[in-house]
């Protein structure tokens, strides 16, 4: 018995492959040179964002998450369309389209970071861009870009659903949308994503980040209802709580401060500590 393993004597065949595996060419040929001088400037930041965006969507996990969101929205809109004769204001349709996004898109943010560790692609990612802080920002901005696109899409879908209800079900339309409510809905989606990215960087581990992301707010609410000083703290620190006035359409100065405090705790702090960790962690 030795500690070493021996190289396999035969070419291993992929177990799931229906066909035999291709072989290396009989003779090796040296790859052609790329003409022109080698780059003396770093990778442009826009390129990093492009690649990070693509990475969010080119895996099966990423694609199914988006398909899942689409399916949930479709079901929600269909139910609303037939429920109560489709008699719902645009704002309600908008809620039906943004809610699923706000709940599931943070997972896209989490996976964008944790897959670098769980799938060990960080070896390649940080090998190609060793200035890791740029990768961290590219991931954050790419995830937020997905959020902005998703929110725009949810506006369009809600609009289409509402207009259809007016046209086909003869409801009296109500297109009124409060500016703050719109900000609340958009913020709900984007802050969730930013929080997801932050949690991903903080935990570097998919199950941990997802579980904590979903369990913590619920645990907080349950505890808050039982412990009085926690309930007081919740008015400043629980984002579920502090975002509520946005949807009601008016915020006092104190409520803005409460919103800001909770965002600092749940979004800014995880991102800041997460980025700090990401830039220092050993990539294995």
């Amino acid at each position: 018995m030795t500690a070493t393993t021996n190289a396999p004597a035969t070419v291993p065949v992929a177990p799931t492959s229906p066909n035999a595996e291709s072989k290396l060419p009989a003779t090796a040929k040296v790859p052609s040179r790329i003409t022109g001088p080698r780059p003396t400037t770093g990778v442009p930041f826009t390129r990093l964002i492009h690649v990070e965006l693509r990475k969010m969507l080119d895996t099966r996990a990423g694609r199914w998450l988006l398909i899942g969101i689409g399916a949930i929205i479709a079901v929600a809109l269909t139910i609303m369309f037939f429920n109560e004769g489709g008699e719902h204001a645009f704002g309600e349709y908008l809620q039906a389209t943004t809610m699923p996004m706000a709940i599931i898109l943070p997972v896209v943010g989490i996976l964008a970071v944790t897959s670098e560790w769980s799938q060990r692609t960080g070896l390649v990612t940080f090998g190609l861009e060793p200035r890791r802080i740029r990768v961290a920002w590219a991931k954050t901005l790419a995830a937020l870009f997905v959020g902005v696109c998703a929110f725009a899409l949810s506006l369009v879908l809600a609009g289409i659903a509402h207009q259809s209800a007016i046209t086909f079900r003869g409801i009296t339309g109500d297109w009124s949308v409060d500016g703050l409510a719109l900000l609340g809905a958009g913020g709900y989606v984007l802050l969730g994503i930013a929080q997801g990215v932050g949690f991903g960087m903080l935990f570097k581990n998919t199950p941990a980040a997802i579980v904590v992301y979903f369990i913590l707010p619920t645990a907080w609410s349950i505890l808050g209802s039982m412990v009085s000083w926690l309930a007081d703290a919740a008015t400043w620190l629980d984002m579920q709580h502090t975002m509520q006035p946005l949807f009601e359409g008016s915020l006092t100065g104190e409520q803005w401060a409460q919103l800001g405090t909770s965002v600092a705790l749940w979004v800014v702090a995880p991102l800041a500590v997460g980025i700090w960790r990401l830039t220092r962690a050993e990539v294995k």
Partner: protein
Amino acid sequence: MITVERLTKRYGPFTAVDDVSFEVKPGLVTGFLGPNGAGKTTAMRVMSGLTPATSGRATVLGKPYAALPNPGRHVGLLLDASAQHAGRTGREVLTLGAILMGVGKHRVDEMVELVGLTEKEANRRVRNYSLGMRQRLGIAHALLGDPEVLILDEPANGLDPAGIRWMRDLLRGYANEGGTVLLSSHLLNEIERVADEIIVIGHGKIVAQGTKDELLAGAGCYTRSTDDDALMAALAAESLVAQRTATGDLHVDAEPIAVGRVAAANQIVLTELRGGDSRGLEEMFLDLTADAAREEVAA
């Protein structure tokens, strides 16, 4: 060109890389040989800026890795063939690299063809790749940016003997064009077949380094003849020490030409005469491996 100066990496009380210095020169294939757990991978990760050194430093092309602009166009890395997203296709993995490095998409096709992946295989998800296919994908990725330096960790793992020869030819051609190649392996015969220079590492320390010829020299030669007794006597007369080995060969502490001359002068028919193999290196290497195995048992 890679320069490693007094590099040390400690994990708590464990020293993975212990005061290691060496140079990897352009135009040569340098083999990094050591048993599993000897510190090869850690040293390579430090060179690639993925693991911070405890002390000492490593530079690639005269700079710390992190200071290289668009490093994919200067250094090709293959640190772990399995470190790819299982849900991406091979082609997608290469495409992402090509976008980031700013080389055209045609380069992706070229690399896929270079490592002999079929169109269908390239469009299959990495989850369904064998180790050999992952290695080929990894090599394709490392070559994507037409780098000047290649750092490959166990690239021959999972390749069959024909694949190892392919790799040797590729790396040889690459080095001949002035490229710098560092590849690691825990198998002596793999390194022997591919490398010009060899660095042997064990327990985080360098135990030998030099050209392959230097490290393999001094191993004497092996011979057989129709009359071994006469040959031994004739050799002894020339004060050359010959010993019978377990396999029945005579091992002589001399260059083959010296033995040939003695045989010719004494009209002894040689049936076999060959230069010594990498026995010295092999013994040293086996000692290292045995140590590592003992430690593993103890731990």
